């Protein structure tokens, strides 16, 4: 792989392209400012994407900032090892379809990753500009999205689909989230007959029920799924492996091996007094009602809790997605309540910045300790305790310490609890022979194989709540290892 990337870098056109512009001139170009939909305009609908597309010219200019380093450290920052300079230089020379094709070599969901990956902590953090020049990194994420969108909007697909030869071996994937899709794409490319089983009625997992359309439009996810279907991947919705049919049943149906990517679907609560009052819901419930079930639309039968004051507990991306959804559902005050300070928030800086622009209030160093309900059992107030930062904890972040006597009541008509998720126990419940940790995550070896032969697992069911890209990385890794094992047999 590395050799191939070096080889490509030495191709005549790449050498020529590098010479076209001096490093000094590349450096002088300012990083692109991603155009955004106006904040007052965009909060009118759940379905207006915040980040606007960039133009062909803008993409080429941004691509020309990339130095095409001999040692592309950016790639080390990417959990799936995308050939970053390879695709960026293709954008610079104007061959966008080829850029998209390079993305597809390593990622089945480039249009998704270009939007939701925390690039600032991954590839862009390792960019030469950021590491050595102390300048803003090349906007790798924006360029990835550009190339993927370009391909999606063009009729002709890049050449991934051509002439797939099936080896006739049936593989089952459990869960159609990013990890399952990534695995399915790679296995289909290896020639397997892949079927993805999904419990919900829609394909995409967290990409559909979790991430809101203003950040990741469903149409973008659907287009990526279409690509997988063209690769020969089959999808079965409304099917819960272990319940609708067992692994044994599927084996009898001819499935040779399995990849469990059922995600961390179980919402965590804080177990504080009053938490089961009406109007207090998990971010999973809140976002699923809106994103998957369309509760914001008049024609949808699914209701969602709305109110004047919406309090969201947590500081991660899901908390940001929830609070920004609240704003779009008409909340007068949409508030984040987070026990540490803004610096420690695990959410992407971009999401925090977007939330602020949309009028979200941040109540940091604040921790809910109790909920108060009205006579009808509906939440009316959150009792908040103020916090201060103490010594760093095992995560390296300063530990929040409560300030006794600082409690006060905050008015709340809806509370969304976004304090993390646990692995879904549906699989492990029905398969006691599948070894799992005390946390409920499935135990795997280095190759991502579980305690049962020919059953691999990856993504959040193994990690217990990570990111889309890490889940995808697992999918790729499991596919490679399973393939090697199956052909070795």
């Amino acid at each position, binding site marked *: 792989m590395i050799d191939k990337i070096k080889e490509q870098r030495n191709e005549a056109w790449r050498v020529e392209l590098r010479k076209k512009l001096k490093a000094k001139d590349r450096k002088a170009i300012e990083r692109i400012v991603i155009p955004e939909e106006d904040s007052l305009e965009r909060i009118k609908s759940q379905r207006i994407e915040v980040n606007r597309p960039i133009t062909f010219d803008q993409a080429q200019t941004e691509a020309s900032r990339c130095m095409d380093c001999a040692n592309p450290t950016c790639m080390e920052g990417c959990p799936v090892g995308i050939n970053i300079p390879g695709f960026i230089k293709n954008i610079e020379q104007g061959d966008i379809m080829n850029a998209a094709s390079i993305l597809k070599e390593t990622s089945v969901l480039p249009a998704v990753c270009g939007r939701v990956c925390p690039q600032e902590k991954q590839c862009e953090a390792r960019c030469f500009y950021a590491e050595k020049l102390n300048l803003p990194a090349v906007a790798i994420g924006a360029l990835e999205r550009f190339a993927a969108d370009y391909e999606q909007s063009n009729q002709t697909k890049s050449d991934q689909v051509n002439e797939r030869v099936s080896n006739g071996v049936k593989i089952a994937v459990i869960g159609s989230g990013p990890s399952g899709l990534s695995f399915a794409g790679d296995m289909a490319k290896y020639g397997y007959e892949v079927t993805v089983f999904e419990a919900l*009625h829609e394909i995409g997992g967290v990409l559909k*029920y979790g991430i809101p359309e203003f950040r990741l439009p469903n149409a973008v996810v659907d287009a990526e799924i279409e690509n997988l279907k063209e690769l020969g991947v089959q999808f079965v919705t409304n099917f819960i492996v272990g319940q609708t049919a067992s692994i044994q049943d599927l084996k009898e149906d001819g499935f040779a091996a399995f990849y469990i990517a059922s995600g961390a*679907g179980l919402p965590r609560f804080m177990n504080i007094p009053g938490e*089961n009052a009406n*109007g207090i819901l998990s971010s*999973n*419930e809140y976002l699923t009602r809106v994103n998957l079930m369309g509760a914001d639309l008049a*024609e949808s*039968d*699914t209701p969602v809790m709305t109110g004047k004051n919406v309090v969201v507990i947590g500081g991660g991306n899901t908390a940001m997605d929830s609070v920004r959804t609240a704003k779009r559902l008409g909340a007068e005050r949409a508030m984040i309540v987070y026990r540490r300070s803004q610096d420690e928030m695990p959410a992407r800086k971009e999401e925090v910045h977007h939330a602020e622009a949309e009028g979200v209030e941040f109540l940091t160093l604040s921790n809910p300790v109790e909920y108060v309900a009205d006579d009808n059992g509906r939440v009316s107030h959150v009792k908040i305790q103020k916090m201060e930062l103490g010594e760093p904890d095992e995560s390296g972040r300063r530990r929040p310490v409560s300030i006794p006597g600082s409690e006060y009541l905050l008015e709340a008509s809806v509370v969304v609890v976004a304090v993390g998720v646990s692995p879904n126990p549906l699989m492990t419940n029905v398969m006691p022979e599948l070894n799992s940790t005390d946390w409920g995550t499935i135990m795997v070896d280095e190759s991502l194989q579980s305690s049962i032969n020919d059953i691999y697992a990856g993504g959040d069911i193994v990690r217990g709540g990570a990111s889309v890209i890490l889940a995808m990385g697992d999918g790729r890794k499991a596919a490679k290892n399973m393939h090697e094992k199956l052909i070795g047999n």
Partner: protein
Amino acid sequence: MKNKIISKVQLSDSIFKIEVEAPLIARSRKPGNFVMVRVGENGERIPLTIADANRDKGTITMVVQKMGVSSAKLCELNSGDCITDLVGPLGKPTKIEKVGTVLACCGGVGVAPMLPIIEAHQKVGNRVITILAARTKELVILEEEVRKFSDEVVIMTDDGSYGNKGLVTAGMEQVIARESIHECVTIGPAIMMKFCAETTRKYDIHTVASLNSIMVDGTGMCGACRVSVAGKTRFTCIDGPEFDAHQVDFDEILTRLKGYQDKEKLGNKLQEVK
């Protein structure tokens, strides 16, 4: 075509029995399981219990009461129509053991999910006494089926229009006074299950309640179905739907069931306008 409705029978003014093609669920379902159903592309996902299954025909039977927009939409479908989405079986199956005599207390559409449970209890050799409770005669449903799987059936109506006059608890007291009961199962409106639990608590009879909570996905994802059992928050969908009735906080359930009532009323209104 998936999830095709094979037959639909009206059991009362607002209650329908719907048999639908679902070969995999018919094969894998166990007593106590439920399914999630969605009707139409704008439909809501709702949990429904399984009243019966026929492995050979590959069908399952559900009993549905028109209550809100979603159940009404399902009841409007006819033989030959397809249910947009149907997934399951979900929930932990009922624990069936040979215990002796089982008192099954059901009310309203709770009779339907009770059928596979009493069938299973009879199969392992338990004596089954079923109390079938309803407001009035017209609402007593599935009596014939209940009789098939019960050693004895006691019918209670609030107004005395059929069977004995009185609430389910009056029937329970009579049976308990007469013979020893080793286990009690209750399925019905939350308020009924609450009083069933209060009744058996006095006699220290182990009692299982099958809860009907609000759910979105039914697979553990949303947490809308959370209930307090023995002071701990549990999810009806994956930890239940059956719990030790003496440990369940029914008052909380009664409040939580009203959580979306305003929204549902709005839905009904919209439906009328259409």
